[in-house]
C-alpha cells in the first residue's frame, strides 16, 4: 500500500447519535478528502440528515470523534462549523418567509452594507447560473427559488467543505449541468463537496466516492462510476428492487380532464399569471407537466383543485362536467383526487394522527360523514388499510403525521388518495424529498393505478419522474404551456429547452 493518500479534510470516527426510540447513527466512520466530491447515499431514516447535522454543528453526537484537518475538533454549533469553513444547504430551507431574498442572505453574513451585498449576490448567482431576485419576499417564492437562495448564500461564505442535501430536485437538466460544473470547479480548487442525493445517475456522473448508510449504519463504500444506478439502489435498500416499466401502447378511452383556454390571475404578489392553457388527459393515460419551479405550477394546481377559486376565463371539465365554480369537495365527489406538493401543512396536518389525516380528504367520498358526525372506527379501518397496502412504516393509525419520515408520510398520502378509487388523479411533485425506495414504490403504485384505467395528471420538476411515468409530456413556462407530445418522441434536452420559453399553443410555435 504505497498509494499516496490525499490529505484528509474531515474524518468521522464511530459517530453515534440516539433519539428517543431511534438509533439514528450507529458508529459511523466517514472520511472526506480535499478536492473530492463525496456522495452520502441512503434511504429516508438511514441517518444521512442526522450525520450532516452533526458535521454542521446542529446536533451533537452522543459518542464518536470528529477530526478536521487532522485535529480533533468539536463543533457545538453551526457558527463554529462556518468558522471552520463548512457550508451547508439544507433540504428543508432555513429562510425567513417575511423577508426578502437579500435580507435572508444578509442575515447569514457579517457584511451589513446591503448595496455591496446585492451586487455580490447578483454576481455570484450569475456565475453559478442561478436566477435570483434580491427584492422578492421568500413567502412568494417556489421551493426551487428558495433553494437557489440557500445555495448562493452558502457559496458567498466561501466554504472549504460544501454540504448539499438533495440540491438538484428543482433544477432543469441544463441548470443541473451548470451546478455540476460549479461543484467540479469547487472540488478542483482543493475544496470538498459532500453530496446527498437520491438521484443515483447524478451521483454516478458527479461523485468520486460514495458512502452508503442503511438503518443508521455505514453498510458500504464504493466508487459510484464503477457501479450502475441499479446496483447502487440495491446497496442502499439492501434488497433487490423491481424497476418500473412503462407500457408503450396504452388503451385510451374517455377524456377525464379537459382544460380549454384557461386564464387565471395570480392570487399572490409575484405570482404567475396563467395564460391560455389547453390540455386533456384520458383514462389510462399519464400526462406529465414538466417545468422549473415557480413557472405557474402552484397556480395551476390551485385552479385545478378549486382551492383558489374560479379561473378568470376558460373551462375546466372533470369527468365530463364543467367544474369552474365547484369547490374541492364537489370536485372530489365527481371522482377526482388531488395531491399538492407540500406534504406537511397542505396535504396533511402535522399535529394530527394518521386517521385524522385520512378524514381530511376522504370524508365524503368514503361516507365517513354521517349527517355531520364522524364514523371514527371506519376511518381507522381505512387508515389501517392504507398503512398495509402502501407499506407505510409507522406505529399505527394513531401516530402523528409529523412523526413519520417524508417518504412514509408521502406513501400514506398517495395511498389515501388512490384507495378512494378516483377516476382522475392530479398530483404535484409526488416524490419531492423522498428517498429512492419510497419513490420507486410510489411510482409503481401510480403507474399500476393509471393502467387500471384512471387518468393521471403529473406536475413535476423532476424530469426523471416525468419521463418514467408520462405517456405524453407538456412543459409549463412563465404561465404558458407547450403542446403535449408523446413522451417517446421527446428527449431530455428538448424538454429542457422548452422550459426556458413562453409558449403559444394556438400557433403551435414557441416564442422565446
Amino acid at each position, binding site marked *: 500500500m504505497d498509494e499516496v493518500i490525499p490529505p484528509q479534510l474531515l474524518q468521522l470516527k464511530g459517530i453515534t447519535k440516539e433519539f428517543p426510540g431511534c438509533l439514528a447513527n450507529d458508529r459511523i466512520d466517514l472520511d472526506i478528502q480535499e478536492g473530492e466530491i463525496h456522495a452520502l447515499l441512503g434511504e429516508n431514516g438511514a441517518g444521512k440528515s442526522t450525520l450532516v447535522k452533526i458535521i454542521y454543528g446542529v446536533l451533537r453526537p452522543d459518542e464518536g470523534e470528529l477530526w478536521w484537518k487532522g485535529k*480533533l475538533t468539536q463543533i457545538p454549533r453551526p457558527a463554529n462549523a462556518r468558522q471552520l469553513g463548512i457550508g451547508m444547504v439544507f433540504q428543508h430551507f432555513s429562510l425567513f418567509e417575511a423577508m426578502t431574498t437579500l435580507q435572508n442572505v444578509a442575515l447569514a453574513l457579517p457584511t451589513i452594507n446591503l448595496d455591496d451585498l446585492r451586487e455580490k449576490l447578483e454576481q455570484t448567482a450569475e456565475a453559478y447560473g442561478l436566477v435570483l431576485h434580491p427584492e422578492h419576499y421568500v413567502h412568494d417564492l417556489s421551493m426551487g427559488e428558495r433553494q437557489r437562495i440557500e445555495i448562493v448564500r452558502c457559496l458567498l461564505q466561501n466554504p472549504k467543505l460544501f454540504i448539499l442535501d438533495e440540491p438538484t430536485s428543482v433544477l432543469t437538466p441544463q441548470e443541473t449541468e451548470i451546478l455540476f460544473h460549479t461543484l467540479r470547479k469547487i472540488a478542483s480548487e482543493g475544496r470538498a463537496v459532500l453530496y446527498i442525493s437520491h438521484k443515483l445517475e447524478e451521483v454516478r456522473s458527479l461523485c468520486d466516492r460514495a458512502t452508503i448508510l442503511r438503518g443508521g449504519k455505514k453498510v458500504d463504500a464504493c466508487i459510484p462510476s464503477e457501479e450502475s444506478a441499479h446496483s447502487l439502489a440495491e446497496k442502499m435498500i439492501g434488497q433487490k428492487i423491481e424497476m418500473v416499466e412503462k407500457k408503450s401502447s396504452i388503451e385510451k378511452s374517455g377524456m377525464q380532464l379537459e382544460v380549454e383556454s384557461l386564464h387565471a390571475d395570480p392570487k399572490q404578489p409575484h405570482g404567475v399569471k396563467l395564460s391560455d392553457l389547453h390540455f386533456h388527459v384520458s383514462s389510462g393515460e399519464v400526462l406529465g407537466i414538466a417545468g422549473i419551479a415557480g413557472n405557474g405550477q402552484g397556480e395551476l394546481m390551485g385552479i385545478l383543485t378549486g382551492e383558489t377559486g374560479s379561473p378568470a376565463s376558460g373551462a375546466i371539465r372533470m369527468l365530463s362536467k364543467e367544474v369552474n365554480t365547484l369547490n374541492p369537495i364537489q370536485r372530489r365527489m365527481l371522482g377526482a383526487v388531488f395531491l399538492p406538493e407540500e406534504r406537511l401543512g397542505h396535504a396533511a396536518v402535522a399535529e394530527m394522527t394518521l386517521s385524522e389525516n385520512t378524514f381530511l380528504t376522504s370524508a365524503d367520498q368514503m361516507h365517513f*360523514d354521517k349527517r355531520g*358526525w364522524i364514523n371514527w372506527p371506519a376511518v381507522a379501518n381505512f387508515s389501517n388499510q392504507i398503512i398495509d397496502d402502501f407499506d407505510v412504516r409507522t*406505529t399505527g393509525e394513531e401516530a402523528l403525521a409529523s412523526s413519520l419520515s417524508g417518504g412514509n408520510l408521502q406513501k400514506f398520502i398517495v395511498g389515501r388518495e388512490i384507495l378512494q378509487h378516483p377516476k382522475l388523479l392530479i398530483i404535484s411533485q409526488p416524490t419531492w424529498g423522498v428517498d429512492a425506495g419510497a419513490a420507486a414504490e410510489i411510482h409503481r403504485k401510480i403507474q399500476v393505478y393509471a393502467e387500471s384505467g384512471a387518468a393521471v395528471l403529473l406536475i413535476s420538476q423532476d424530469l426523471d419522474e416525468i419521463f418514467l411515468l408520462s405517456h405524453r409530456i407538456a412543459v409549463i413556462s412563465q404561465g404558458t404551456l407547450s403542446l403535449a407530445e408523446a413522451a417517446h418522441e421527446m428527449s431530455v434536452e428538448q424538454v429542457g429547452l422548452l422550459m426556458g420559453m413562453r409558449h403559444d399553443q394556438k400557433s403551435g410555435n414557441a416564442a422565446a
Partner: protein
Amino acid sequence: MLRLEPRVSHSSLAAWLSPLLAMLFTALTGALIFMALGKSAGTTLYLYFIDPLTTSSSLSEVAVKAGPLILIGIGLSIGFRAGVWNIGAEGQYILGALFGSSLAVYFHESTNPWILPAMLLLGILGGMVWAAIPALLKTRFNSNEILVSLMLVYVAELLLIHLVQGPWRNPQGWGFPGTRMFPDAALMPMLFRGYRFHLGSVIAFLIPILAWIILSRSRFGYSIRVFGSAPLAARYSGINPKKMIWISLLAGGGFAGLAGIIEATSTIGQLMPKISPGYGFTAIIVAFLGRLDPRGVLLAGMIIAVTYIGGENAHVSAGLPKAVTGLFQGIILFYLLAFDLLTHYRVRFISRTAGAS
C-alpha cells in the same frame, strides 16, 4: 447540562395529571409562603383550598362564580382552536345581558313563564350580534379581529352605562344608575333554598359535555381543529375559511351573551353599570388553562373560582393581603404550564464532554 427533548408519544394520562399536580405543587409552594409570612401553613392552606369545598354554601358560591367563566371559556376555546382570536368576550357578555334584559325592562310586570327562555335566547343573540361585527370586518376587509373585538368591549361598557343612567333607569331608584329589579318570572330559579346555586349554573356545567362531544365527534369540530392548525390543509379539504371565522366568532359571542344574561337574571336581578368582575377577560385564561379542551375548561373554571373564593376566605379569616389571590393564580398557571411542558418534552441530563471523547 440539562436539555429538553420532545417525547415521541404524549400520554393522555399525563395531560390529565398535570392540572392535579399543579394544584398540589401550588399548595406546597403556598405553604412555604404562608410560613414565611408567619402564619400556620396548615390552617391557611385549609382556608384557601379546602374550606371553599367543605360547606355546601361555599360550594354553591364556587359553582356560581365558575358558571360564567366556564360558559365564556367554552365559546372562546372553539375560536382559539380555529386560530380566531376573539378578545372581546367581555363586550359580548354585556351585550348579551343588554339584549336579554330589554324584555324584563319593558315588561317589568310580566308573569309570563316564557319570558325567561325568551330572555336567554335574546341574550345569545345579543352576544352574537356584537361578535358579528369583527366577523364581518374580518371576512370583508381582513381587519384584525383582536383589535376590533377588544375595542368593542369599551363601546359595550359605555352603551350599558348610557342605558342604565338614561332610558332604562329605574324611576323609583332615587337617581342611582340601574334598571328596575326584574320581575320574578324573569329570574333564574334557585334550586336549593338558601343557596345562590341556580339553573344557570346547571346549564354552565352541562354545556362543556355537549361541546366536548361536538368537538371530538362531529365534522364541524374537526374542521375547526384543521382550520386552526393548518389553514392550507383546511382549504385543500374544502373547508370554507370565511365560514370558520364566522362560526368561531358567533360561538364565542353566543356563549358570552348567554353567560351575561344568566348573570343578570340570577345573582344580580337587574342591570347596573358594573355587571361583570372581568369574566370576559378571565375566561381567556380559563380557556388556555383548560388547553382549549371543553373538559379542561370545566376544570379550569372551577379552579379559578376556588382560588377566588379561597382568597376572600384567607383575607377575612387569616388577615392575609388580598394580593395573595392573584399570587396564587399566578403560581397555579406557572406549575400548570410547567407540567404541560413536561408532558410534551422530557428532560435529559447530558454530560458536557459528550461528542469530544
